[in-house]
């Protein structure tokens, strides 16, 4: 029978199924970070349970780590609570072990969803979990990747399995060619705008179509990263030659005969012709424009040429009140053109958009220009130490700094503001992250989600502009 990619990944990892369909699913890779793991390790200790498979764990500290003053080491982390959490991870990894650990200050340290792929710790055909919802990112490799909660982290540490019911299959096909200046981020936001933040609930999404095949691996990661914002716990893209080319030669990628055998297997990591999808959504790539969110949920998005919508036009009462609340929080008036919204801060980073291509795209836009006077802070936070080193080798840091950007150390940073990088109340930010929820980037902060090129252009202009016509 013809199978979807999700069916294949599921079937090759099922250990046991109960009569009601509840399955034990085997997990190949477990990414661990400091925020969602302490209570899980604590649980293991209390129950006196060993870790099932130490070499499945790849760990790093990213959410709390500062993006400045690394020369001061741990002492540079002023917030004692943050520091304790990072030290607790050190202690737990020392006690329980891992395949590899990139601690704070390590040159390979970085956002957990950036370091997995870049070290070959994420491979096609795998199951990947992490105590972070954006684990869907790893699906870009033809892998099955889920964000999990802390009890599940503990469960996977202790048993190497997840207790799950199979999701439905959803296909999102994007066909045709993207316009110049339109990116994977814009596809993702356009998809969320179309199906809503709960549109993918209960589904595993596979992104297909010529526009997806044309994306680079980094673009596919951006896209899968945002699957969770469409309500789907997992998103994926079929494995193809680009996938193999990306994976080859990385730290934990197979080599020699194992590589050849792996590639042969990975070539089957796609949906078969005629495979059944429960839900199908199709989009025309040529119609997708640069996207900017206007509200407090990624679904509240429009095109850069659009306007802030008018709640009065909404007939559903719950939706209307939700929109009114969002506009009040965002301090925006209905019908304001997006390009008339001026900004206070710019954040280029987060696991959505902090890879080398994102930084290249930003540098290209700002080269030889200056950040606008009304922008208090424009910062670039690379996704990992390796991304940072690569960017510096290419001289991108200089271009950005000359334009007036701050060039920081890697980590999650202002994506969620657990460290000191935060918006102050009322500040408005053009951000390449993935969530514009109330208070996400700092209490009272106002977030507009955009692509790296759009964020860079907004930094220069001081307000949103269409990067396609920006000079």
């Amino acid at each position: 029978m013809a199978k979807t990619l999700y069916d294949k990944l599921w079937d090759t990892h099922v250990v046991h199924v109960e009569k009601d369909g509840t399955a034990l699913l085997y997990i190949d890779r477990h990414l661990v970070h400091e925020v969602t793991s302490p209570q899980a390790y604590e649980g293991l200790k209390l129950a006196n349970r060993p870790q099932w498979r130490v070499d499945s764990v790849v760990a790093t500290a990213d959410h709390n780590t500062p993006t400045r003053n690394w020369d001061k080491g741990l002492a540079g982390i002023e917030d004692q609570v943050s520091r304790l959490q990072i030290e607790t991870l050190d202690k737990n990894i020392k006690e329980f072990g891992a395949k590899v650990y990139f601690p704070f200050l390590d040159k390979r340290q970085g956002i957990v969803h950036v370091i997995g792929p870049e070290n070959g710790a994420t491979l096609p055909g795998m199951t990947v979990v992490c105590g972070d919802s954006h684990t869907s990112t790893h699906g870009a490799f033809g892998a099955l990747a889920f964000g999990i909660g802390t009890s599940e982290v503990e469960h996977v540490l202790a048993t190497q399995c997840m207790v799950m019911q199979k999701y439905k299959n959803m296909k999102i096909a994007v066909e045709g060619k993207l316009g110049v200046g339109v990116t994977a981020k814009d596809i993702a936001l356009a998809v969320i705008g179309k199906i809503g933040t709960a549109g993918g609930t209960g589904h595993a999404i596979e992104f297909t179509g010529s526009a997806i095949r044309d994306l680079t691996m980094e673009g596919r990661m951006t896209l899968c990263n945002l699957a969770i914002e469409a309500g789907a716990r997992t998103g994926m893209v079929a494995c193809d030659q680009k996938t193999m080319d990306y994976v080859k030669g990385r730290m934990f990628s197979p080599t020699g005969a194992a590589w050849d055998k792996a590639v042969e297997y990975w070539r089957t990591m796609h949906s078969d012709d005629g495979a059944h999808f429960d839900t199908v959504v199709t989009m025309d790539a040529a119609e997708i424009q640069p996207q900017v969110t206007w509200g407090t949920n990624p679904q509240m998005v429009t095109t850069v040429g659009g306007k802030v919508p008018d709640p009065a036009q909404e007939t559903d009462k719950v939706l209307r009140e939700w929109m009114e609340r969002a506009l009040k929080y965002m301090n925006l008036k209905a019908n304001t053109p997006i390009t008339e919204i001026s900004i206070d801060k710019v954040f280029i980073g987060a696991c959505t958009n902090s890879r080398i291509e994102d930084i290249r795209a930003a540098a290209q836009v700002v080269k030889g220009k200056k950040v606008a006077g009304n922008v208090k802070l424009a910062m670039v936070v690379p996704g990992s130490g390796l991304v940072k080193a690569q960017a510096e080798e290419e001289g991108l840091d200089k271009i950005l700094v000359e334009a007036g950007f701050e060039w920081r150390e890697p980590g999650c940073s202002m994506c969620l503001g657990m460290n000191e990088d935060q918006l102050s109340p009322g500040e408005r930010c053009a951000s390449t992250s993935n969530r514009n929820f109330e208070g996400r980037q700092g209490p009272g902060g106002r977030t507009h989600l955009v692509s790296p090129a759009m964020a860079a252009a907004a930094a220069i202009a001081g307000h949103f502009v269409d990067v396609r016509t920006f000079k």
Partner: protein
Amino acid sequence: MEKFIRKEGLVAPLDRANVDTDAIIPKQFLKSIQRTGFGPNLFDEWRYLDRGEPGKDDSKRPVNSDFVLNKKRFEGATVLLARENFGCGSSREHAPWALQQFGFQAVIAPSFADIFFNNSLKNGLLLIKFDAKIVDQLFREAEAREGYRLAVDLETQTVSTPGGDSFKFEIDPFRKHCIMNGLDDIGLTLAHADKIRAFEVKHKAAQPWLF
């Protein structure tokens, strides 16, 4: 995990759609390495007028008296009524912990986000999905009548109103069994340890590069 069979309690209506886990428990409280102590900071940015920080004495903070959970009549509520897509966003299990530690034992909404759903049931916080029409009715009644209580019976999978209505809800039998008996998932899975080991042997033969 505490056993949950039949519970009856005061209802608090939170009339907002797409309540995300950042709102349920803001990030600064995720720095804790404990599993407890999140209750006072549930919905922190909505409940208080100042900015909450770990270690701050919450009893001395200015409260937002307009927020539903701060209203006298909803004090001691154990059932939360909510709208579509409750619990969307971050995978933080601190969200169900905070709801439980505040005192909630069940949440009723038309839909929940997937990860939040799993996290909650793993902790014995019962999430009940009803048609939007039924949820509308419960909202109307809870807002209209002071001291409005609902009885949640997991065994019969019903929620009963003071007015005599009774609504049936779905829950998968495995979850129901775990919650009713306060069972630990890990122990149950480890009962299949032999199967997991046998799977590993087969899996390693098929994809040796994963080991």
